[in-house]
């Protein structure tokens, strides 16, 4: 059998022990189309199609004009791509008598998103930190209640929370909405942070205690700087949840600060004659853009953070 020429060392031949190299040597010859590889990539590609199909449909539909949409060829690319639906969705679509599309809600959404994400993550991270390192009697009980709370359908809470917000004088304000998002983001995020901090060695905490650092010092100077991955996960979950929220945004605020999803709902649900699918799709894509971008940017950190925060426990 011929020796594969991959055998790089020629000096080896001179070696007394080695003798002649017969039979298989070096790496196994590779068959790029091994059945197992075809299986793996084949499955992945088929699933990818399932996952990508809707995105594709949204995209091509949003680039067609209504006459083409009506022809019903959902999956064919636009014959005559147009950005009109996007412009209409962004700036012209009507709700009631206001015809300024999604643009009005976009900045509201941003205004809601930023404080809500920041505050809810801040509260959850501090809670998770306290649960991991500063336990006190009953802290676990509260935590378990919190976790059960994650299962309660939001709708049940609408009335009682409206009453609580009224009593606090926060109803209809941005502050009230931030509070609601903080409350409903708390279970899952606290769980994530708690599990993450549980994987931080206790000794680190003890060392800081000996160094005279208190609750906040340890949190800000020791724990925060080392929790980037879990902050990313938490941020992604919160951004997604808050950005996509419709119910709280509309129930606990007023039109002046309605988020983008309210406009989206209005555009999608205000049927004027025929449904303008192309505009709906464009609006949908526009609305989903912010979380999508955040996903694409932070994909890798997300898995790392999940590994750190969700799997252990």
């Amino acid at each position, binding site marked *: 059998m011929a020796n594969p020429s991959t055998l790089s060392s020629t000096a080896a031949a001179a070696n007394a022990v080695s003798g002649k190299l017969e039979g298989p040597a070096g790496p196994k010859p590779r068959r790029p189309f091994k059945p197992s590889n075809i299986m*793996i990539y084949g499955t992945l590609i088929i699933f990818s199609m399932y996952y990508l199909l809707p995105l594709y449909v949204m995209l091509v539909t949003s680039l067609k004009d209504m006459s083409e949409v009506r022809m019903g060829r959902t999956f064919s690319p636009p014959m005559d791509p147009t950005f009109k639906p996007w412009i209409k969705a962004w700036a012209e679509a009507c709700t009631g008598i206001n015809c300024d599309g999604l643009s009005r809600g976009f900045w509201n959404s941003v205004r809601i998103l930023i404080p809500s994400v920041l505050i809810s993550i801040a*509260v959850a991270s501090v809670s998770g930190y306290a649960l991991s390192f500063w336990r006190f009697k009953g802290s676990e009980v509260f*935590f378990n209640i919190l976790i059960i709370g994650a299962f*309660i359908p939001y709708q*049940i809470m609408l009335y009682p929370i409206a009453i609580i917000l009224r009593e606090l004088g926060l109803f209809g304000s941005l502050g009230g909405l931030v509070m609601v998002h903080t409350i409903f983001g708390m279970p899952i995020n606290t769980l994530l942070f708690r599990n993450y901090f549980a994987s931080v060695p206790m000794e680190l905490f003890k060392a800081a205690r000996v160094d005279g650092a208190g609750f906040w010092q340890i949190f800000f100077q020791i724990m925060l700087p080392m929790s980037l991955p879990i902050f990313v996960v938490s941020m992604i979950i919160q951004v997604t949840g808050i950005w*996509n929220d419709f119910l709280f945004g509309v129930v606990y605020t007023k039109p002046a600060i309605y988020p983008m999803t309210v406009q989206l709902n209005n555009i999608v649900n205000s049927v004027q004659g025929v449904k303008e699918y192309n505009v709906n799709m464009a609006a949908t894509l526009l609305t989903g853009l912010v979380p*999508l971008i955040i996903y694409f940017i932070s*994909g890798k950190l997300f898995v790392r953070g999940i590994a750190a925060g969700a799997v252990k426990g």
Partner: protein
Amino acid sequence: MAVTDHGQINSGRDFAKPPIRLFKNLSAKLASLPMIMTATVIFVGCSIWTIVHSFTNSRLLPKLNFVGLDQYERLWGSNRWIVSVENLMIFGICSLIFTLLISFTLAALLDRKIRFEDSFRTIFLYPFALSFIVTGLVWQWILNPEFGIQSVVRGLGWESFNFDPLYNPDIVIYGILIAGLWQGTGLIMCIMLAGLRGIDEDIWKAAKVDGIGTLKTYTHVIIPMMKPVFITALVLIASGIIKVYDLVVAQTSGGPGIASEVPAKYVYDSLFLRQNLGQGFAASTMMLCMVVVILIPYVYLQYGGKKDG
């Protein structure tokens, strides 16, 4: 020297007395206040409030006119509620099985040191970024028999092809399932992937030396080892299932007929459309019961007193 002397040394100044318990680690307690308040006031408080009012005949506004179990009798006498619960069970079981199956398969495939892992992962994960409204809308469109898959396949010449899950009461819940899986499997896949990455490399090697095939290694060795991961995944899926509402509303509004009604929608409709708070609260109390039944084993498994302080 006083090696064996047990006499009390009383020269200590401040630290001889235990401090008052309540004020120990005060900042920790203060910092946990939002969590405590959320847990007690919002989750416990509102749940009790809900349960109490489920025994009243409150209409538009909560009132304390107790009517005993009337609301529950009517609830379980209502065809729509029964259908809702049935749907939830079908949807829940299918969603649980398929989510676990698909997400584990994908995670396992991604874990096999493949190329373009990042791209594939992003593809599987991105739907999670979209809201249910969006998800429902797109799938409604794709599953629409006149524009969607059915028409395309028929266009290809297979005239008898029938695929209209959203318009067929018998299978509408599966149409919703398709969209639900599309949106939710990515996150679970990520969790599974993270779990797989946490498995000791040596286990794989040991299995290889033992001559155990890849598939069998997964089924007999790896999956049983990933119990905690599966529990986390289970809880996430279960909480999503119980709350499924937006998706149904966005895709079918419960239709055709009442074929795709779910309990959360029953609650919502009772509370806000029917203006029958008592009925809505009774339904949500039943949902709460389901949650508790699901959660008790989880809490027991996950938090049954662990980790040293």
